[in-house]
């Protein structure tokens, strides 16, 4: 599992969902969390060196900059090529999942989800990231 001191960025346009994800992360033991309401605001936080984001959990379907656009932006910047990125989505259509995998997502969580599922998906993402970085 990730070091629990890792700073987690939770991105969702819905305040309710940000609360649910942040609470689940706190219950897992993460101590440092920051939230953003869309992909554009998230990018401003990620690219600000003061924040040192270590894990992104982002919704897919958001106004301004969607989760997949944020993922592509993150993976397109050499500084964040291995920054763990987990997508939250209410849809599990095959084409959408394939697009996320191609864009370099570390894992995806299909809504609805429980806190236990979130933890399991983060563990899987960590295992994948660890394998990738050796």
């Amino acid at each position: 599992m990730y070091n629990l001191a890792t700073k987690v960025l939770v991105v969702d346009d819905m305040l309710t969902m940000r609360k649910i994800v942040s609470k689940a992360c706190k219950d897992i033991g993460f101590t440092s969390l920051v939230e953003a309401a869309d992909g554009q605001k998230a990018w401003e936080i990620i690219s600000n060196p003061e924040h040192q984001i270590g894990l992104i959990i982002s919704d897919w379907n958001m106004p301004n900059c969607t989760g997949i656009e944020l993922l592509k932006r993150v993976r397109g910047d050499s500084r964040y090529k291995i920054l763990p990125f987990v997508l939250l989505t209410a849809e599990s259509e095959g084409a959408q999942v394939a697009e996320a995998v191609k864009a370099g997502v570390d894992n995806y969580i299909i809504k609805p989800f429980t806190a236990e599922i979130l933890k399991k998906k983060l563990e899987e993402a960590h295992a994948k990231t660890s394998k990738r970085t050796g």
Partner: protein
Amino acid sequence: MAEFKSEIKDGIHIITCPEVLESIGESIEANVKSWLIMDNHIHVLDFKHVLDLKQNAYRPFILFNQKLKANSKKLFCMNIPEKMIPQMAQEGLAQVFVLIKSLEDLKAGAKPATGKTAPNRLALDVEFINPFIHATQMVFATQASTPLKAGKPYLRQPNENLPMEIAGVISLTNPAFTGSIALCFQAKVFLKIYENMVGEKHEKIIPEIEDAAGELLNIIFGQAKTILNDKKGYALEKALPTILAGEKLTLRHSVGPVMLLPFESEAGTFHLEVVIEKV
């Protein structure tokens, strides 16, 4: 070997699954081979005895479903234990294990597949409505710890205005029709569901909590859209929810019959409205 009980009722092949569904040495594959050579167009997996669904059982059922589909046949499931529904959704199995309430429900709405997909058609029927009912039950059980009992859907009467104080609304768009779905609550019901969902208790609806109505509907739409697009050939487009809130709220949908789907829960009753009209 996992012991499946196989029987035919009214032309439907019913497979009653064992308590533990797992594939040891190709035990499920061997059964699948025998089911595939049957003439029946509709196969139903009955989960009434199942206590545990192992990951190694997914693949043979996914292949079973694919091969049935290739031969214009259909696979459904019934009596799936509530605790397994989040597992199935999370593993992307909702498209394989398409849930029906009962054989009667299936007989009323499903016909043997013809091999033709149904893209862009206009139909406020069981095939279109059921994914919304199942998605609503699954979403509330998993995301809001609120099990639901679905009531009988009916067409809303012209002057029928059910009391509501908050609603999430999503526009439905595909090349052949437009429409909308709305998730509608009275304040006391919404507040209890919000408490179950987030763990915060509120005495009245405030702007900070209103988006929960939209988020719940967004997840319901996402689940139903996956089934309707991937499995049934509809081409519903993505959409973001909007929220309406206020005392004595009424929804005026565009022209078209409004199908009302009522739900009961320990938090109280609420409903989903579905309306579509031809472009």
